[in-house]
């Protein structure tokens, strides 16, 4: 597999949200507004890249039997660092994301990449893989939250764009809206896939 391919597969072919259906908890929970999705995406990219880098560098020293606890401790460390950083420097966003930042620890995309890729591949490739997956995850969140915010609240990044005569489809910013939007998007992607074959 070429280096470019390792990076690009996370964006579309193996997109964690649209193709692998991993990390559904943050995908459904924080995509009501675009600003939250961007912050969550950046936090996940940070944690994913740092963990992949660390675990890939240590891969020869981690005994097979205790690899999962070691992975989890490393991931949790970076998540907590990100949480402190957000709380100290971006209190508004940190308040909005609430418990979902600490919950990145159990985001299966991150543990999944360590198990499937970083623990078996050299550092540079692991970082590429992590970047691709992280950006793919962020893009999925951005697409979902844009649809939900525009139709559900009539705004984008808090700026009204649909005018005052537009009646917002409130349900889209509520939790059921996450399922509706994701379901419609997944159906649409399957449709495209079938047609291109």
């Amino acid at each position, binding site marked *: 597999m070429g280096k470019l391919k390792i990076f690009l597969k996370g964006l579309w072919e193996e997109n964690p949200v649209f193709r692998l259906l991993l990390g559904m908890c943050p995908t459904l929970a924080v995509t009501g507004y675009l600003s939250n999705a961007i912050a969550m995406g950046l936090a996940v990219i940070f944690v994913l890249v740092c963990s992949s880098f660390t675990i890939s560098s240590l891969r020869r020293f981690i005994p097979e039997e205790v690899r999962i606890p070691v992975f989890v*401790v*490393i991931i949790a*460390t970076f998540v907590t*660092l990100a949480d402190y950083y957000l709380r100290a420097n971006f209190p508004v966003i940190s308040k909005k994301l609430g418990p979902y930042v600490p919950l990145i620890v159990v985001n299966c995309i991150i543990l999944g990449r360590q198990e499937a890729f970083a623990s078996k591949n050299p550092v540079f490739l692991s970082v590429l893989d992590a970047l691709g997956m992280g950006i793919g995850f962020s893009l999925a969140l951005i697409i979902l939250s844009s649809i939900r915010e525009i139709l559900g609240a009539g705004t984008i990044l808090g700026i009204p764009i649909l005018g005052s005569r537009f009646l917002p489809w409130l349900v889209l910013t509520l939790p059921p809206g996450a399922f509706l939007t994701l379901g419609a998007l997944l159906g649409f992607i399957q449709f495209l896939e079938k047609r291109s074959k």
Partner: protein
Amino acid sequence: MNYRVRMIVMLLVVSAFSGGSLSYMYENLKEKIAENLRKEIEESVSNLIVFDNYQEKKWKENKVFVCYKEGKVSGYAIIGKGEGFQGKITLLLAMDGKGERILGIDILESQETPGLGAKIDEDWFKSQFSGKGKFPLKLVKLKKPEEEEIEAITGATISSRAVVNLVNSLVEELKEFIEQNG
């Protein structure tokens, strides 16, 4: 090295390193985090009460801020928590220096439904409380609110009632505080 020993050593090293780096970061950032929290509270107090300086006091489970302007008490603010529609609502209530009238309220934290219950944080709802002096406050629907009445948010009666109840109980507590400390 024995394989078992290697497992233990690896876990130990990783955990120690993780603990160390976290406490180092925390030590560096904790003042900034506390400062952010304080600034947020100070800002909401200063939107409601005019003051030069203030004193923070503990009263039962809540925090009370006694605000002074030119040496005289210009107002009191109390922060309390109450049960909302989903999760807790943290509310700041400001009253005048005699503890007779509400100067205003602010919602510091809430997890109410976006678009419905979350409207308790909108100005038109919060400003209804300003100037109220007759207690306990009552919640009304579909009519023009009178002196001790607050108009509910359409579609969010439970959240509105939670705020009114919380305000009533905080008014009681603040009056008690003023009686004993004023």
